[in-house]
């Protein structure tokens, strides 16, 4: 857990200087900052890193089994591209990845690829995106491999900086149904995780 947090802070530390070094937009007067608005046809590139908290498994009998010590906190990151359909709606593609270790130090890795829908609440200079990701995930543990669907509802909060950048974070719920049939039907589990991440948005 401490290692994961340290790693994330270090990685994020690499990002901050780059963001802080952004030059003010020369087209705008220094003391006469004008808000930029975005609409259909504009697009953004985003990336971030954070923690993935394992919450619990649920099965198809209605049982909820907390991961507890079975799975440690994981590190995660993502990159995504989104296009504005309207001034309040973005649609795009996100690739994220996570890793976490089981109680015996086996490493779980998941790489979800999701289509992402965002509805933007505007509280300028804050933007609060309500998001929903739908896709599938490449899950691997030791020699086991799964390819389940994934659903990622979430909410974020980003501060508009001068220039084209926004900086903030998001909380995203990962719901991953691993559905099995026949002999393995009893092994059907619905994985539940919570992502807490810091990220940056760049308006292209």
């Amino acid at each position, binding site marked *: 857990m401490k290692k994961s947090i340290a790693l994330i802070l270090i990685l994020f530390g690499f990002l901050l200087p780059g963001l802080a070094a952004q030059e003010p937009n020369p087209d705008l007067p220094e003391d006469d900052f004008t808000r930029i608005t975005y609409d259909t046809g504009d697009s953004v590139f985003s990336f971030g890193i954070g923690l993935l908290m394992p919450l619990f498994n649920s099965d198809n009998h209605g049982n909820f089994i907390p991961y507890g010590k079975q799975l440690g906190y994981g590190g995660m990151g993502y990159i995504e591209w989104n296009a504005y359909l309207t001034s309040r709606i973005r649609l795009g593609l996100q690739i994220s990845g996570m890793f976490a270790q089981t109680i015996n130090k086996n490493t779980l890795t998941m790489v979800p690829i999701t289509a992402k829908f965002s509805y933007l609440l505007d509280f300028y200079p804050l933007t609060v995106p309500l998001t929903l990701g739908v896709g599938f995930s490449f899950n691997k543990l030791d020699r086991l491999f799964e390819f*389940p*669907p994934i659903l990622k509802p979430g909410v974020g909060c980003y501060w508009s900086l001068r220039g084209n950048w926004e900086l903030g974070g998001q909380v995203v719920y990962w719901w991953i149904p691993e559905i099995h049939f026949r002999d393995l039907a009893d092994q059907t*589990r619905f994985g539940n995780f919570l992502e807490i991440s810091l990220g940056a948005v760049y308006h292209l």
Partner: protein
Amino acid sequence: MKKPLFFKTLLLAPALLGLVTACPNKEMGIFFSIENERKLNDNVLPNNATLTGMIKITETSPNVDRYVASTGYLYWVRAVDNFDYHLNANQGGRWERLDPPETGWLCSALVYSGTTSEKVFAVFYNPNASVPTGKLYYADPGVWPLGWTEITLSTNNIAATAQDVKIANDQAFILGYTGAGPERDYFVWNCSASNPSALTTAVTGLDLGKIPSAYFDAAYAGSKYYVSYGYRLFESTSPSGSFSTPSGYTLNTTDAYLITGLLASSFYTDHLFILQKGRGILFYDGGTNWDSAANLAPAVPRSLAEIELTAGPNTGKYLLLATETGGYEYQVPASPDGTAIDFVLPTLTTNGDNYKTLELRLNPALRFFFDKGITTNSNGQQDVIFALTAGYGLWGNRAGSSDRQWNRE
């Protein structure tokens, strides 16, 4: 407003693809595996070791039981109830190294003759030699540490190199060869554990030819000795000669029908289990009945063991089967009739056992070693099942008060 087709596809395609392909894994679910994983104890043996043999021997004075395992290097630990990894080898804790007969030599086979004649046999070789150096040794298990004595092999006055050794009914069967490279000629020698001495004549009737194989085994069932090598199977009433292919055995001379192991059954009197690629498990009564345990349907059986748990939460007779695709456990019927095996669903692991969640499940045992334990105590009989793997170390499963758990040795 009608949405562009691109965005519809972007939304739906991954979801549909995910639903269709959610379950490519036939072994077990990942979240299920995480949920059931148990914290492992990890003794000091290398976790990537390949086990080439394991025995339990008793020093006569003082009376001390020890396990000896071979990973190439020999290791030992005292066999005790209430095993504790924090103790040293003499207290039944951490494994310690045992010297080979010659410095730097490795052990490729290790067997124990049992209770009648009581000898340990082993094959050692020099890993740094440019020519094959396999030598057969024996030792008295009642003296600790083991003192090794070489047994030379030859046939037709030509010195031979030892490759493997097996035990059946206190008879040692030694696989070896003369010559080098592709021109090797393979033979089997036999000696009684009660009188090990230089072996100058190979067993007659065991026509092994020039084809090398890692699959060699021997067993004694129904007053007959059985020897398997590659895809060949032989039987004889004498351990020293007159071997021939059993009547009714369908010999198929391709590697698709390699015999991976033999097991003389203690549950089914006079019966022999034959583990074979392509045929699964054959169940032979020594006469005319060759029953195929087809309902097991393992693609390639690797090892089979009979264990009887007399205390703890899962008493009963069990067959442990390891295949190349995973392990199985089968409970033997209470009253086996010996003519056909009616395997029932496994029960040993349903009581919280962690077998399904471990590497052991995916990297099955080359063979099992079962020990009924030393004494009984408040936790019941402290029996232990060892699983000897290729490249994934030695695993031990010790009886507990409520369940069983596999740990790394």
